[in-house]
C-alpha cells in the first residue's frame, strides 16, 4: 500500500529484531475478550483515481454553477491564488504545533504577523493565534469576562448569529452562567438599548453584541458599551464578516472582540474548518484562551518567536486552565494571513467598498425591511420566501436565507448578501423575482 513504506523483507528483518515470529504476536498480550475476531466491515482500499471519482460524484450532487446570495455567517469571497500556493507547501501543511521553536520559526513568525494584523484590524492590544471558529470564540470570550469580573450573568443580543447563541447556551449551562437575550428594534434592526439597560445589573459579567449584526446592520456598539461599563460588565463585540473591518470603524469600546475569519480566503466548505479569533485589551492577557506567540531572542541575539504564556493552557494548568482548547486553526489562520497580505491596507478597503456597492445596488432595487445602516447583507420582506427561492433556483440562483427558521416574527423575510463576487445580471434577476 502506497502509504506504508516497508517491504515484506524489511518487515521480516524488523520482526526478527523484535524477537517475534509473526506480526500477530505483537498483539498476543491483548486479552482475548477485547480482540476483534472479524475483519472490519469496510470495503477494500481503492486507487487514487477512484477516490477522486467518488468525491467528484459527491460534488456533482451539490450545487454547481449557481450564483449565491447567502451570507448569514459564511461568505463567498474571491480566494487569491497565492493562498493555496502558500498553504499547500509541505513545510506549512504537514508541520506540527510549534512547541519546538528552533525548527518552527516559519509557523511562529506567520502567527505573530497574524496576531499583529488582527490587532490592527480590530483596534485591540492583543490577539490570540485563533480559536476553532467564531461560534466557539463567543463562549470562550464570555468565560474570560466571567473570570475577569468574578460575576456570572451574560446578556446577549438576539441580533447575534442564532447558531452562535445556541453554542453559548450549550457551554453556559454547566458553568452556572445564566444567559439572557435582549431584543432589537423592529424598525431599525439595531439593538434595543432600553431593553438592554433594563436587563443589565450589577451581577452582569458580559454584554454580547454583533456588528455588523446577523441582519447585516452596523449596530450601536458605543451605546452598548456605555450601558455595560456603567454596571461593571465587559462588552464583547462579535463579527462574522471580517471584510467589513476593511471599511468599518473597529469596535474601540469593546473589552473583548470575538470574530470569525472565514471571509478571508477560507472556503465555505459546507461549514468548516474556519478560524475564530479573540482579541482584547492588555489587561486581560492572562485570561485569554488559546495559543499566543511572543517575540524574544535566541542566545546569539537574533530575533525569534515562541509560544508563550503557556501556563494559561491545559497542558500545564490542567483543570484550572483558561480553556481546554489544544488545537488552534494554524493552517486556516495562515490562509487569512496570506489574504490580508495580498490585499493589504489599500486592497482590504477597496474590497469592502466593492461589497458595499454591490449590496447597496441590490438593496436599491428592493426595499430593505430595516432602516439601519448595513454593510453587505440586508433583510427584505418576501411574503413566501421559500416560493421565491424556488423560482430563483430555476434561474440557477440560490436566494437569501428565509429567516423564519431563526426568527418567527421575521417569517415573511429573507436575508440577502451580495459580495464582490455577485454579478449585476444575477442581482437584476433577484430584484425582478422579488418584486
Amino acid at each position, binding site marked *: 500500500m502506497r502509504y506504508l513504506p516497508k517491504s515484506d523483507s524489511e518487515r521480516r528483518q524488523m520482526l526478527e529484531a523484535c524477537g517475534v515470529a509473526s506480526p500477530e504476536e505483537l498483539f498476543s498480550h491483548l486479552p482475548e475478550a477485547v480482540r476483534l475476531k472479524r475483519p472490519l466491515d469496510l470495503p477494500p482500499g481503492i486507487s487514487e483515481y477512484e477516490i477522486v471519482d467518488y*468525491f467528484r460524484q459527491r460534488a456533482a450532487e451539490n450545487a454547481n454553477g449557481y450564483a449565491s446570495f447567502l451570507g448569514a455567517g459564511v461568505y463567498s469571497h474571491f480566494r487569491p491564488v497565492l493562498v493555496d500556493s502558500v498553504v499547500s507547501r509541505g513545510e506549512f501543511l504537514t508541520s506540527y504545533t510549534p512547541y519546538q521553536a528552533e525548527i518552527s520559526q516559519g509557523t511562529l513568525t506567520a502567527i505573530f504577523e497574524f496576531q499583529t494584523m488582527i490587532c490592527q484590524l480590530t483596534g485591540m492590544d492583543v490577539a490570540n493565534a485563533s480559536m476553532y471558529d467564531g461560534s466557539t470564540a463567543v463562549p470562550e470570550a464570555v468565560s474570560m469576562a466571567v473570570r475577569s469580573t468574578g460575576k456570572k450573568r451574560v446578556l446577549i443580543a438576539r441580533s447575534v448569529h442564532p447558531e452562535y447563541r445556541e453554542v453559548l447556551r450549550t457551554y453556559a449551562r454547566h458553568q452556572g452562567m445564566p444567559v439572557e437575550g435582549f431584543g432589537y428594534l423592529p424598525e431599525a434592526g439595531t439593538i434595543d438599548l432600553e431593553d438592554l439597560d433594563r436587563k443589565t445589573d450589577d451581577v452582569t459579567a458580559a454584554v454580547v453584541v454583533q456588528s455588523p449584526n446577523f441582519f447585516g446592520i452596523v449596530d450601536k456598539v458605543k451605546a452598548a458599551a456605555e450601558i455595560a461599563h456603567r454596571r461593571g460588565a465587559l462588552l464583547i463585540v462579535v463579527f462574522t464578516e471580517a471584510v467589513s473591518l476593511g471599511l468599518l470603524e473597529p469596535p474601540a469600546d469593546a473589552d473583548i472582540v470575538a470574530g470569525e475569519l472565514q471571509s478571508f480566503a477560507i472556503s465555505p466548505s459546507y461549514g468548516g474548518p474556519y478560524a475564530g479569533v479573540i482579541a482584547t485589551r492588555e489587561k486581560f492577557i492572562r485570561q485569554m484562551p488559546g495559543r499566543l506567540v511572543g517575540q524574544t531572542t535566541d542566545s546569539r541575539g537574533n530575533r*525569534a518567536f515562541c509560544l508563550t504564556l503557556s501556563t494559561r493552557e491545559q497542558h500545564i494548568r490542567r483543570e484550572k486552565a483558561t480553556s481546554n482548547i489544544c488545537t488552534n486553526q494554524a493552517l486556516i489562520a495562515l490562509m487569512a494571513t496570506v489574504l490580508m497580505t495580498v490585499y493589504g491596507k489599500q486592497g482590504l478597503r477597496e474590497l469592502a467598498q466593492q461589497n458595499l*456597492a454591490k449590496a447597496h445596488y441590490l438593496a436599491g432595487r428592493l426595499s430593505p425591511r430595516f432602516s439601519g445602516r448595513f454593510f453587505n447583507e440586508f433583510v427584505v420582506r418576501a411574503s413566501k420566501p421559500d416560493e421565491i427561492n424556488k423560482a430563483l433556483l430555476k434561474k440557477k440562483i440560490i436566494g437569501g436565507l428565509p429567516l423564519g427558521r431563526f426568527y418567527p416574527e421575521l417569517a415573511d423575510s429573507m436575508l440577502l448578501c451580495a459580495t464582490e463576487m455577485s454579478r449585476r445580471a444575477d442581482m437584476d434577476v433577484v430584484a425582478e423575482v422579488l418584486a
Partner: protein
Amino acid sequence: MITKVRPHLSQNEALLFERSSPGKIAYQLPALDVPPVDPAEALGAENVRSEIPGFPEVSEVEAIRHFTRLSTWNYAIDHGMYPLGSCTMKYNPRINELVARIEGLAWAHPYQPEALAQGSMEVMARLEAALAEIAGMDAVTLQPAAGAHGELTGILLIRALLEKRGNPRKKILIPDSAHGTNPATAAIAGYAVENIASSATGVLDVAALAQLVDRDVAALMVTNPNTLGVFEENIVQAAEILHAKGAMLYMDGANMNALVGIARPGDFGVDVLHLNLHKTFSTPHGGGGPGAGPVAVKKAFEPFLPVPRLKRSGKKWAYDYRRKRSIGRVRAFYGNFGVLVRALAYILAHGGPGLRNATVDAVLNAVYIRKKLEPYFDLPYASPNMHEVVFSDERQAKLGVRTGDLAKRLIDYGFHPYTVSFPLIVHGALMIEPTETEGKLELDQFIEAMISIAKEVETDPQLVKNAPYGTRTSRVDEVTAARKPVLRWRPS
C-alpha cells in the same frame, strides 16, 4: 556521526510590516459593474474608519517570497519523521488535499438547500458509518472541531444521560497519566476532577478504581492504550465496575492508531469516545490545526447528540432538528467538513483490511524502536508496548542531562524531538511514536541518532546540554518571552 542533515543556507526574512511601502499592492479586483457608493453616506461618517494603521503593503512577488522563506524555517512530516508520542504524525496524503478542494464541496454553503447539498450529506453519513464500525459504537457526531472539543461534547453527553436518569453526579476520575485536556474538559463541563494513580505496572489500578467509584462519580476518562503506549488489560473489568454503579467509561481516542482493526472500544466496554481525525485519520496538522474530534457513542446516548442529526428521508438525506433531548450545538453548522472529507479519503484509500495493516505496521515500528533503544535508555515500565514507547532520562540525568536536552540534540541529527516530559508519571519522559508511515531506513537513522546521543552524554554531556547547534536560531529565551510578553509588532 550525523548522516541525515548537513548545513545549508536559508534565507533571512523580515516581518511583512518591515517590508511594507505605501502604494505597493499584490491584488487586483475586477472593475465594479454597479455604481460605487460613498461609505460615509451608506454607513454614517462616524462608522467609517480611516486607514488600517500599520497594515502591510507589499507586492505579489514579495508576498510569495515572504511566505516561502518562512516555510523553509519549518520542519515538517514531508521532511522526515516526527517521533512525537500520542500525536500520530503520519503522512498526510496529497489526494486528500485535492478532493477537499473540488469546487462543489469546497464552495458549498452550509445553508444551501438540502436538495443541493446531498453530496456533502452523503460524505458525512458515510464517514459516520465508517467511524462507528471502526470504533464498535452505535452513533457518531461529526460536529466537534478538535479532540478537546470532542471530549467536552462527550462529557456533556454523559452528563445529559445521567441527568435523565435522575442524577448528573459530581466528579470525574482521571488517571494521573492523562493528557491535560482531560481535566480541563471535566472542569468546563462542571465536574470536579479526582485523580486516580496508576498501578506499579503503569496500567489502571482496578482495585483503586473499585474503591473510588461511588454514586458521585459520573465517569472515568481513559486513554487506551494509555499514554505509556500500554494496553489497559483491565479495561473490561474497569467498565464493569463503573457500570455496576451507574457510571460511564469515556475513552480519549488519541491512541486509536494502535487499535484500528485490532480491537474496538465499543467491544471492551467504552460508552463514549472521541476520535482525532488529525491523528489516526491522517488529516494534516498544518502547524497546529485544523483538526476534528468526532464523538462515537452507544445507543443510549443517541438522543442527546448535538443537533442536527442526519436522517434518511426517502432516497435523500435530510437534517433532523427535532431533537428534544439534544445537548444542543457545540459549534455553528455541521462540523469541519473539509477535514471530514480528508479523513474519508484516507479510509477509502486503505479500506478495511488496509486499516488493520496500517495498525500492525504502527505497532511493529514502535516495538522495533523499543528493542533497539532499550540497552541505552531506561524503560520505566516493562509491559508490552503498542504504537508508542516511553523511556525515562534516568540514566542520562545522573550525568546532568535531561530529556529536554536530549530532544534538542536530536534536532541536530535531523529529526523533530519526541514528546518531552509527558506523561507526568514518568520522571523525565521520552515518549516516542513513529506511526506506520515510517520506513526502515528512517527508523534506523532515528535509532542511530538516539544511540549516538546516548554515547555523547557519556563522553561530552555539555555538548548535548547546549544543543541544538545547526538550527537557524539557537535555544530561544522563553523566560523573557513570558516575563515581558511582546505579542504583536509595533512600529518603532
